[in-house]
C-alpha cells in the first residue's frame, strides 16, 4: 500500500510539473484528488488495512494529499502568473497614438484675464458692478470733472448718439452711479465695454474693455491706493513683481498716478517685450477729486477715496503675448482654442 501511495505521489508530482497550462493542471487534480481520483481510491481502500495500521496509514494518505495539494496550488499560482504575464505582453498599446478628446470649448482671453482680476478684488472685499454702455454725457464727462468743451472730451474721441447721449469712453461713469446711490463705504470694480473712435489696427480697437475700481470710505489715503494696487499687481503678475507710481493727470482724480510693473518677461532687466525699459505701464489711478465726490453727494471733508482704471485688453495682450488686438474680435477657432 505504502509503495502504491508513493507511486501515486511521484506520478502526480511529475504530472504537475509537466502541466504547462491551467487546464492540464486541473486534469491532474481531477485524476488524483477527484471523486474518482487515484488517491481517493486509495482512501476508499482503507477498509482493507488492518485496524491497528489504519491511523498511521490514514496520516500517510493525508500527508501525501496535502503535499500534492500544495504542489498543485503552487503550480497554479505559477501558471496564473505566467498567463497574466503573457496577457500583459500581448496588450501593449502605442501610448503615443492620438488622444480621443472630449471637445471642450474655451474662454475668451479677455474673460480669463477679467476673471483673474475679479478674483483678486473679490478676495479684497470688492463688489463687481455694471453700468450702461450707452451712457449720458453727464456721467461720462461732467460728473467726472470734465465739463463741456474740456479738451479731454476731444482726446477721448467720443462716439455721440446725440448731445446728451454717448457711447461711454471709460468705465468711470459707473463710479459716479455707484456713489450716487449713497451707500458707503464703497469697494467696487466695474468691468465693461467702452468705445473710442479709433480705427481698427494691431493696437487699437473702437471697442475695448476697462475695469474701473473705486474705494470710498473715511480716512482712505494715497498710501492705501499704493498698497492695494501693489497687492493686485503681485497677484496678477507674480510675487516678485515690483511697481512704480509716476505722477500723472486725470480730471477726476487728484493726486493722480500711472502705475508701471516690472516687465514679467525679463523681470525688469529690459527686453524687447518692454522695449528695453524693464517696466510696463499698466493702469491709471488717483485719489478721487473732491469736486467729483461733491457732485455725487459725498462730503470730501468726511470721506475720501481712490479710483483706478485698467485696460483689460492690455492685460490680456501682455499676459498671453498676443501681438495683434484684431485677433480678439475675429473669433477664429484656432486662436480661441489656445486659451
Amino acid at each position, binding site marked *: 500500500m505504502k509503495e502504491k501511495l508513493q507511486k501515486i505521489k511521484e506520478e502526480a508530482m511529475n504530472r504537475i510539473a509537466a502541466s504547462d497550462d491551467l487546464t492540464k493542471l486541473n486534469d491532474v487534480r481531477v485524476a488524483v484528488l477527484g471523486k474518482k481520483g487515484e488517491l481517493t481510491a486509495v482512501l476508499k481502500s482503507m477498509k482493507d488495512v488492518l485496524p491497528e495500521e489504519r491511523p498511521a496509514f490514514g496520516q500517510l494518505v493525508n500527508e501525501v494529499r496535502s503535499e500534492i495539494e500544495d504542489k498543485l496550488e503552487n503550480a497554479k499560482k505559477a501558471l496564473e502568473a505566467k498567463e497574466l504575464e503573457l496577457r500583459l505582453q500581448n496588450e501593449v498599446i502605442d501610448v503615443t497614438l492620438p488622444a480621443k478628446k472630449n471637445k471642450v470649448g474655451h474662454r475668451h482671453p479677455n474673460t480669463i484675464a477679467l476673471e483673474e482680476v475679479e478674483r483678486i478684488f473679490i478676495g479684497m472685499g470688492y463688489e463687481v458692478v455694471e453700468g450702461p454702455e*450707452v451712457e449720458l454725457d453727464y456721467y461720462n464727462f461732467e460728473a467726472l470733472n470734465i465739463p463741456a468743451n474740456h479738451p479731454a472730451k476731444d482726446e477721448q474721441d467720443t462716439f455721440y448718439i446725440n448731445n446728451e447721449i454717448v457711447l461711454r469712453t471709460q468705465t468711470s461713469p459707473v463710479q459716479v452711479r455707484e456713489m450716487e446711490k449713497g451707500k458707503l*463705504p464703497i469697494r467696487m470694480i466695474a468691468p465693461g465695454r467702452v468705445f473710442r473712435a479709433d480705427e481698427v489696427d494691431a493696437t487699437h480697437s473702437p471697442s475695448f474693455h476697462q475695469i474701473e475700481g473705486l474705494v470710498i470710505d473715511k480716512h482712505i489715503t494715497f498710501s492705501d491706493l499704493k498698497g492695494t494696487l501693489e497687492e493686485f499687481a503681485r497677484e496678477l503678475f507674480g510675487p516678485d513683481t515690483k511697481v512704480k507710481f509716476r505722477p500723472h493727470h486725470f480730471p477726476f482724480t487728484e493726486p493722480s498716478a500711472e502705475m508701471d510693473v516690472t516687465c514679467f518677461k525679463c523681470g525688469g532687466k529690459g527686453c524687447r517685450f518692454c522695449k528695453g525699459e524693464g517696466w510696463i505701464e499698466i493702469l491709471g489711478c488717483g485719489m478721487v477729486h473732491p469736486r467729483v465726490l461733491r457732485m455725487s453727494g459725498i462730503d470730501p471733508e468726511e470721506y475720501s477715496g481712490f479710483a483706478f482704471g485698467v485696460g483689460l485688453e492690455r492685460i490680456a495682450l501682455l499676459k498671453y503675448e498676443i501681438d495683434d488686438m484684431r485677433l480678439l474680435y475675429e473669433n477664429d477657432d484656432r486662436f480661441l482654442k489656445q486659451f
Partner: protein
Amino acid sequence: MNTSLAWIKALVPGLSVTEQEYMDAMTLSGSKVEGYKKLDADLDKIVIGQIKGIKPHPDADKLIICQVDVGAGENIQIVTGAPNVSEGDKVPVVLEGGRVAGGHDGNLTPGGIKIKKGKLRGVESCGMMCSIEELGSARDFYPEAPEYGIYIFEPDAKVGSDAIEALGLHDAVFEYEITSNRVDCFAVLGIAREAAATFHKEFKPPVVTKTGNDEDVNDYIKVTVKDHELCSRYTARVVKNIHLAPSPKWMQHRLSAQGIRPINNLVDITNYVMLEYGQPMHAYDLDTIAGKEIIVRRASADETFVTLDGQERKLDESVLMICDADKPVGIAGIMGGENSMITDNVKTMLFEAACFDGTNIRLSSKKIGLRTDASSIFEKGLDPNNAMEAMDRACQLIEELGAGEVVGGAVDIYPVKKEGRRIPFEPEKYNRLLGTEISKEDMLSYFKRLELGYDEASNELLIPSWRQDLECDADIAEEVARFFGYDNIPTTLPNGEATTGKLSFKLRIEEVARDIAEFCGFSQGMCYSFESPKVFDKLLIPEDSDLRKTVTISNPLGEDFSIMRTISLNGMLTSLSTNYNRRNKDVRLYELGNIYLPKQVPVTELPEERMQFTLGMYGEGDFFTLKGVVEEFLTKIGMHEKIEYDPNAGKPYLHPGRQANISYASKVIGYIGEVHPTVASNYAIKDRVYVAVLDMPEIVSQASFDRKYQGIAKFPAATRDISMVVPRNILAGDIEKVFDSKGGAYLESYKLFDIYEGTQIRLGYKSLAYSLTFRGKEKNLEEADITGAMDKILKELEGMGIELRK
C-alpha cells in the same frame, strides 16, 4: 513736447546728470519722458581739419587726394570724391577709428559706421571728411551746408577742435508726455523750472532787458479789442528797418535740435520764443495794414478769408479775427493772412503776442479744419501774464541779432489782469490724504523750488498765474507728493469697515452660461456692439420690423459701424463665416453681449441694454445638439419647469421648418433654429448653421441657485413602453403634454427611444416610441396603479388620432 538737454542745462546751470538720470528723475517728478535721442550717439573722433593741399588721384578721375591738418602736428592724407572742397577749407574730419552716423543719402546706420584706414584705388586714406548727412543731421537744419558734398565750417573755426561741439551736436533731445493741465510745461522755461525743482538746482531764466528806440509805438499802430472774452490780452510792438539774415548758429542749433528748420532771423526768433516761453507770436507786414489800425473782432457769418498758405477759409461769427481798418488780416491764434504776411521785402513789422480763449480756438480750428502749431498751443489756454514777457524777449533777440530797430513802447490791451490764486496752506490735510507725515518745512521747501509763494501772515500759498492747474487742497497735495516722491509714500491697505466681495446675481448666471457652453464645446467669441444697417437685409429682416429701429451713432467710423446692434446674430454669423472661410471644421462659438433697444426713435433717453447669450455652430451636431446645450444651461440655473418650444416663431432669418421660440413659465426666453439657407449664403457659409439666442434678462429673472433635496425613491421603478403611429403634424411635445397631464402622480419620467419616418410607415405618419417610468414614493406599485395611468394616457392619445402598436 521736445526739449534739448543743452538748452535745459543753459537755464539750469548747476544741472549735471546723464541722459538716463534726467529721464528717470523727471518722469518720477511728473514730467514724463517718453524717450530721448542722443544726437552724438554714433559720432566719434570727429575734429575740424583744414585742407592744406589737393592733388588729383593718379588712377581715378573723380577722386582727389587731400593733405589735411587736424591739429595733430603732421597732416593726414584723405582721399575723397567730394566735388566741393578746395584748399584752405575747414571741414569735419573723422579720424581713423572714429564713427559717423550714416551715409551721404541721409540713411542712418544703427550703431554708426566705423572709419578705418584703407586704400582707395591704391592710394592710402587715413580718415574721412564728412557731409552733414553723415553726421546724422540734414540740410534742413544746417541750411549753410552744401546740397551735395562736405560740410564746410566758417573760416574762424579752430583746427583740431571738436567738430561735433562746433555743430552743437553734443546734445540729447527729450520727448515728454505733458498732461493737459500743465500748460506751463509746453515751454522750455516750464520744463527747465521743473528740472531745477527736481534736481534741486537754481533756475536761471533769461534776463529780459528793456528794448526800443525813442519813438512811440502808438504813432505806428492803434489796437482795438472788441471781444475781451475771446481775447483777454493783446500786446503789440513794432520793428522797423528790418534786416533779414540767417540767425546765429547757437539759435539755429537749438531750433534744429527740436526739429525746427531755421529760416531767417525773424522767423527763427518767433519760433525760438514760442519754444522758450510757450507763447505763439505773429508778425504782420505793417505796410499792408490799412489805417495803421488793428481791430480784434468776431468774423461775420459766411465771411471768407485767404490764409497765408493760400487756402480760402470759410468762417462764422464764432471765429475771432484780427483785422485792419478795411479787412481781416489773420484768424486769431490760428493763422495769419496772405494779405499781410512777411515777405523778403518787409520794411516794418507789427509783432503780436496775445492771449486768446483756448476753447474758442480749439472749436474754431476744428470748424475751419485748420490746426497749426500756434492753435494747438493756444487751445490749451495760456497765461495772459506770459504774453508781454514773451514779446519783450522777442524784441530783445531782435536787437541782439540786429534783425531790426525796435520801436519804443508797447501796445498792451489787458483790461482784467489775471491774478494768481491764494490757497490756504493746510499741511495736515495733505498728509491725511497722502498717508504721510511730511513736515510743514519740507512742504514749504518744495513749494519754494516750484516758485509757489507763502504768505506767513495769512498762512496762504500764493500760486503764480502760470500754474492755473493748482486750485484746491488735492492739487497742493499732489505737488507735495511729487517732490516728496511717490516712491517714498508708504504702502498700506484700507482698514475701514469690512465689505463683502461678490459678483452680482446676473454675473453669476453669466458665469454658468460660460461654463455650460464650454463644457458643450462652444468657445467664447467677442463681437462689436456697432454694425452696419445693411445687416438687416443680410438677415432678411423685413423693412417694417422693430429691429430696424436703432440707436444710431452720429459720428461713426463709417457706415459699417454706425448703428448699435438690435440683434446679436450678425456678430455670430460673421465670426462663423470667418472660421468657415478659413476652413476651420466643426466650429462652435458663443457670445455674451448686449443688444441695444431704443425706447424711441430718434433716441432721447438711454436705450434698453439686453444681454444676449448667443450660441452658434456648424459641422458636427444638429438642432437637437444645440437644444441640449440650452436645456443643460437652464437646468443648471435652477429652471426645472418644462421648457416649451413653439415652432411658429416667425423668425425670417431661420429655416421656416426648423425654428422655435423657447418659452419658460409661458414667457418667451429666446429662440433656436437652423439659419435660413439664404442667410447662411449671405454670410458665405455653405453648411447648415444652427443658432440659439437666449435673452438673459428674462432668464435672470427666473433663475435661482436655491436647491431643495428631493427624497430618493427606495421602491423599484416599473417601465412601460408604448409605440405609436402618429400623424406627422402632431409634435412630440404634444404627446409629452399628454404624459404630463394624464400620467398621474406615479409617472416619474418618460423618454423617447425611437423615431421613424419612411417606407415602413404610411405617408403622412411617423412612428414614435416612448418608455415611461413609474415609481411610487411611499409604496411598491401594484399593476393596477400603472394600468390606471396608462389607460388614461392611451385614451387621450387615441383621441388625437394616434394609433398604438401593441
